[in-house]
């Protein structure tokens, strides 16, 4: 998408006007129980979230947010199941226009925050049986997740 090509900037809108931004996450295949949402952060750090409606026949998830015209935003799509975040996209950047379209592609990089968390967990002493079983549980969950990723993306 063009980043502010003046030819395609609405001259009747000011940067302080809010516009209804149609959000489209394309090429998406959701399984039962999974849902998609988007998190948008604007220049001032204000966060907006909305669930996207999945249209199975179009492999598309859709939603709408009101954002300031042409304001810089960063955004990220999430695929969730219940409480769990299964996948996210990279953190993406754009300017708010009438459509925010992204072709689904999961991100496999860990954010530095997550890395720190993981590191902290692995440093914990292993002598408590309870945590041991817990971590075993999360390992098997993790394996399940990885194999579901592999099945989903054909790795």
């Amino acid at each position: 998408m063009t980043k502010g090509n003046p030819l395609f900037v609405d001259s009747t809108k000011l940067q302080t006007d809010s516009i209804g931004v149609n959000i489209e996450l394309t090429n998406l295949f959701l399984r039962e129980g999974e849902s998609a949402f988007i998190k948008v952060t604007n220049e001032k750090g204000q966060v907006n979230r909305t669930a996207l409606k999945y249209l199975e026949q179009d492999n598309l998830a859709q939603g709408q947010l009101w954002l300031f015209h042409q304001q810089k935003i960063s955004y990220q799509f999430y695929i969730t199941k219940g409480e769990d975040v299964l996948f996210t996209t990279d953190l993406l950047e754009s300017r708010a226009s009438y459509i925010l379209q992204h072709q689904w592609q999961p991100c496999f990089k860990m954010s530095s925050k997550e890395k720190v968390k993981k590191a902290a967990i692995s440093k914990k002493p292993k002598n408590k049986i309870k945590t041991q079983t817990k971590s075993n549980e999360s390992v098997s969950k993790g394996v399940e997740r990885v194999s579901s990723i592999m099945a989903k993306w054909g790795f």
Partner: protein
Amino acid sequence: MSIVSVINHKGGVAKTTTSINVASSWAKMGKRVLVVDLDPQASATHSMFGKEEFKKTVFDVLVNRVPAKEAIVHAEEFNVDLIPSELLLSGCDIQLAAFYGRERILKRALDEIKDEYDVIIIDCSPSLGLLTVNALLASKEIIIPICPEYFSIKGIELILDTIKNIRAGLGHKVKIKGVIITRFRNRKVIGRVLEDVKEAFNIKVFKSYIPDNISVEEAHHNHLPVHKYAPRSKGSIAYRALSKELLNDEG
């Protein structure tokens, strides 16, 4: 009522020829048709009127805010109305750039007269600038003429990108009515184009292909629609079939 832009960023693919001949065929079928010449080279205007000059043109409509009604002339031989163009239009991007609502000037101008027509055809210039953006914002749909002998995937991609940007940046959705094969010399070449257009882009290709035909060129120099200049020529028959096909294609 529909407003159609004939668009391709390439020159010489028969945008103008298709606009004026289809317009005239539709008029012959009883439709009230207006052609808007939006190309600074004014080939639609010259093709219909020769060297005649006009007091008011599409330049005045866009830059001087003259009501479209005042710029309309009737092309007797084609039996269609025309908003003529002139070379001055080539510099209008700079003048328009400062206008509030610069991308919807044509749309607003046509809104005032569109009820008087069944179809409005906009003959676009090959460049991508505010003129073309104005054409697209005024249009519900576009048709893309393609010359199979020098067809390029890149050309189609450029048009699709433009449509996407119009939707994202300006909130207007334009429908791609389809691709028209023009000036073909060799049927074999068409097959390849069909595959590319249909498979790569999922765009409809109209079945009435227009052959390269000397009568089409001669009609242009004689300021006549081909159906009048040489009614039985291959070019005339093809344009008539295409005009019917386009009219019947609703959706």
